């Protein structure tokens, strides 16, 4: 059995920032990720990030991943385990890990869960045909492995992910036939919509997919209009000759480990589903278990990084390390509040109100 002071599960922006913050306080950290490399969502994001300069906005996601990883690898009190999936957190605090081919156990004094989020699915006829992808899968294929998913894509969902992945598809030379969105207005940022509009991609609001067409794989899609009550309007069906249907219909926090650890959970729509109650330090109702990033509520990389720093500092502080920790934490809290202060942060603020303990 191995032991560490702070175990951090998930090496995306939240986990890496948590590791750095805690290690700089002097704590011994083990950072665990199931991927082949650190970075989480960032390794697939070839676009320049919106957000704050402090969190590297204006830089492409892939480069932000490198910057954060370099910082983490410089600290020799951080042990990094990649290709390591955390399977469970048991009542006695034992964390079990599938590390490569091996089954390992780890105990920790504090644990930060920064496992990110998972994609939501959509129900429609033939949604199990090959050629129906989640946006994350399209990004992994295209941006990590250099493989295009097909020739002509129907994108479902005009939130930021749907808009950005559409843009990345076009950059990869793939045609995007249309982006459809069930809501009467698209949810993504205007500037991201404007980018694909001026290339000529139509964004059809109040539209949904009825079915995927094809026997062995996707050969087309039928879309139709929705009325004000989100009911399909008969007679408005339209067939599109696409070979890929890409779903970008939202994310839910990845919270299995939090359930397993016994954290008090609550269903709150704004952060994307079931999430853990937390205090100001981002500690859950189970003492010693902290959360950060999309796992605490789906938001953005900027906020994931700051939450990571707050959780990392809190955990280190609780272990008695204190190099100006409370002062730094106050600064980050102020920073994250500013980030969430605007119009688009409203949803986040509403959600957080329901989750405070």
């Amino acid at each position, binding site marked *: 059995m191995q032991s560490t002071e702070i175990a951090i599960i998930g090496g995306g922006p939240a986990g890496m920032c948590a590791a750095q913050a805690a290690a700089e306080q002097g704590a011994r950290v083990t950072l665990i990720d199931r991927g082949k490399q650190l970075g989480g969502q960032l390794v697939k994001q070839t676009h*320049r990030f919106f957000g704050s*300069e402090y969190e590297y906005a204006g830089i492409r996601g892939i480069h932000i991943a490198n910057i954060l990883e370099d910082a983490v690898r410089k600290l020799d009190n951080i042990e990094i385990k990649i290709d390591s999936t955390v399977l469970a957190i048991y009542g006695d605090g034992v964390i079990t890990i599938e590390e490569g081919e091996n089954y390992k156990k780890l105990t920790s004094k504090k644990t930060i869960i920064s496992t990110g989020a998972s994609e939501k699915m959509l129900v429609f006829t033939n949604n199990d045909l090959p050629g129906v992808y989640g946006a994350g899968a399209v990004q992994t294929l295209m941006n990590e492995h250099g493989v295009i998913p097909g020739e002509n894509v129907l994108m479902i969902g005009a939130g930021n992910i749907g808009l950005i992945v559409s843009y990345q598809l*076009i950059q990869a030379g793939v045609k995007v036939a249309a982006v459809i969105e069930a809501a009467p207005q698209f949810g993504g940022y205007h500037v991201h919509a404007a980018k694909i509009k*001026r290339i000529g991609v139509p964004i059809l609001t109040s539209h949904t997919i009825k079915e995927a067409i094809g026997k062995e794989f996707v050969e087309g899609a039928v879309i139709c209009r929705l009325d004000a009550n989100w009911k399909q309007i008969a007679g408005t069906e339209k067939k599109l000759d696409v070979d890929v249907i890409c779903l970008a219909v939202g994310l839910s926090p990845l919270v299995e480990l939090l359930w397993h650890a016994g954290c008090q959970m609550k269903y709150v729509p704004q952060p994307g589903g079931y999430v853990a109650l937390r205090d100001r330090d981002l500690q859950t109702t189970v003492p010693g278990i902290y959360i950060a990033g999309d796992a605490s509520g789906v938001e953005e990389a900027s906020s994931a990084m700051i939450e990571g720093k707050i959780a990392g500092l809190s955990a280190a502080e609780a272990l008695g390390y204190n190099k100006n920790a409370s002062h730094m934490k106050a600064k980050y809290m102020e920073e994250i509040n500013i980030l969430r202060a605007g119009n*688009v942060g409203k949803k986040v603020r509403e959600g957080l109100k329901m989750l405070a303990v």
Partner: protein
Amino acid sequence: MLPKNDKAYVEMVKRLLPSLKRREKGPYAIFECFQEIPCNPCLTACRKGAVDIFIDINHLPIINYEKCNGCALCVIACPGLACFVIDETYTKTETSIKLPYELLPLPKAGQEVEALDRQGNVVGKAMVIRVQNHKKMDHTCIIAIAVLKEQSLVVRNIRY
């Protein structure tokens, strides 16, 4: 809300324009950023201090046209690709527009291309004046094009 059609869009952009006197002086930036989102690379990228400092990261950027010299650093920095540089003094009949461009292949200087509006409709022809693409720009290229004066506020993309 994002303007529905191009006409409404152009009207919104018109309100951003500097004074006629400033426009006659040479290149200036415009930020087609109409939604408050937590984002500030335009502010931090500008070396002339021409973006009024906004403390709340959600605020819309406002350009101080006394300071903006149309250098186009913001064009590269904006993650929304929403910054453009307009030079109405390019020739008597043409305006030059600097566009952010992230697609391949890149056009060449001297090439005639189709000019597109914000909905991707072809609205005429444009001449590529210059293509800037150096390492520091990290694949966000700047394409300078010449378009007819009356299309300065309409053309925002090219195709070829």
